[in-house]
């Protein structure tokens, strides 16, 4: 137990640094995947059959294969196959590769949630906007968007909580996120080795983070209760 108290400050500091990287990947993924997902959802609803088909196959591939494999391919493929390691070997490169993989993957999941949300809005909303002389984009942004947001908050929050935990997959390309930081104390780091508790302790970070997010989504849902 003494060892634990000695180790704790060192480990805590390290894990904080790792979790900051986790949060960064989480935030960047959201920032990229939320709008990209909307774009992809428009693709799946396109009037053009070819566009629809291409987008649907793309979503099938991305949702049908493990994110871990996608990470590995995106990170290693350019270097191994084209002899052009675009990402570089440092932490910045690993982060960029992770962000790209996560954004693409999550955008596909988000796009299906958006599509469900948009298609559940009665066609009468479009028609009412049209007969009032509104343009399609005005109807989308001023009439349908908020109704869609209200409908997708529950499935979206699910997906976003999963994203927090999924960021740990970036460990596979040695991104120095919180799992990586916890694991380092097993092999030996900063004078501590053979300690497994730091790895277990990383769970607390995810738990607290997702607890806060759950509260936040609850508030958003509440905020949107002003209309039905």
């Amino acid at each position, binding site marked *: 137990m003494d060892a634990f108290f000695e180790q704790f400050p060192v480990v805590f500091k390290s894990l904080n640094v790792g979790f900051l990287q986790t949060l960064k990947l989480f935030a960047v993924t959201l920032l990229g995947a939320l709008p990209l997902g909307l774009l992809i959802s428009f693709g799946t609803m396109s009037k053009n059959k070819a566009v629809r088909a291409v987008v649907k196959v793309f979503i099938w591939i991305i949702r049908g294969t493990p994110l871990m494999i996608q990470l590995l391919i995106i990170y290693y493929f350019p270097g191994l196959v084209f002899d052009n390691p675009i990402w570089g070997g440092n932490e910045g490169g690993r982060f960029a590769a992770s962000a790209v993989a996560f954004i693409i993957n999550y955008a596909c999941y988000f796009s299906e949630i958006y599509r469900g949300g948009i298609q559940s809005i009665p066609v*009468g909303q479009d028609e*009412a906007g*049209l007969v*009032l*002389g*509104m*343009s399609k984009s005005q109807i989308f942004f001023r009439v349908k968007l908020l109704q869609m947001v209200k409908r997708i908050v529950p499935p979206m929050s699910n997906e976003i909580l999963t994203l927090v935990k999924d960021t740990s997959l970036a460990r596979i390309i040695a991104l120095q996120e919180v799992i990586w930081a916890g694991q380092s104390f097993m092999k030996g780091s900063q004078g501590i080795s053979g300690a497994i508790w730091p790895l277990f302790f990383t769970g607390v970070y995810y738990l607290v983070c997702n607890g806060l997010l759950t509260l936040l989504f609850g508030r958003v849902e509440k905020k949107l209760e002003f*209309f*039905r």
Partner: protein
Amino acid sequence: MSLLKVEHICKSFGKTGVLKDISFDLEKSGILSIIGSSGSGKTTLLRCLNFLERADKGTISVDGNKIYDGEDSSFLKPDVLRKNRLYFGMVFQSFNLFPQYTALGNVMLARQLEAKKNPAYKEKKKEILEGIEAEAVELLKQMGLSDRMNNYPHQLSGGQCQRVAIARALAMKPDILCFDEPTSALDPELTGEVLRVIRGLAEQKATMIIVTHEMAFARDVSSEVMFMDQGYVLEKGPSKELFENPKEERTKQFLARFREGG
């Protein structure tokens, strides 16, 4: 000259012909009721006037200007379509209010968006928006909703919702106001308040086309009545004449059923 001239409108969905060579005129301040059984094409006709459906053939003219020709795709350009739509206002059976806007917001929204195209918008933004609001408030008052302006649609009864929808349509100052079974989604108690509002508009000389199953109302309020059956206009005439002396056998049958049903 008639305000609205509809000539030879045809519309099919796939192989099913829904409108078969529909032609009619409507004078300014005229009120045309369209009656007929479900599936006779009444609603589709109204939707063709608003371009919610594209008629396959035929022309629509307002004030002598052609605004639609089924055989000329230049009328289908989004900008042209948007502009020409505004000759008509539309009140739907299911209201279709925007749920996240208050009653007042519903009435103002399209006008506010339209105002942004005004070249003087940036300089006179406040004035313009205040003008729009004042008009919207006035319209809602006219509809008897002065105490409901800041309520959201889900806080209103069906009859109140439909009156907001009428105000919303009027806010665009349409030449012709179309009603698609405006009271069919309402229980009998709420029907009256909506019909009263439409009567009020009639007194103000609004030009209206009303698709309805309210026979007594159609008889009283309209200047003309058109009976549709299976995509054709079987009979059209002054309201009194059509109700009291229908010429076609099918019209007689239809009206008789209504009399029996009360």
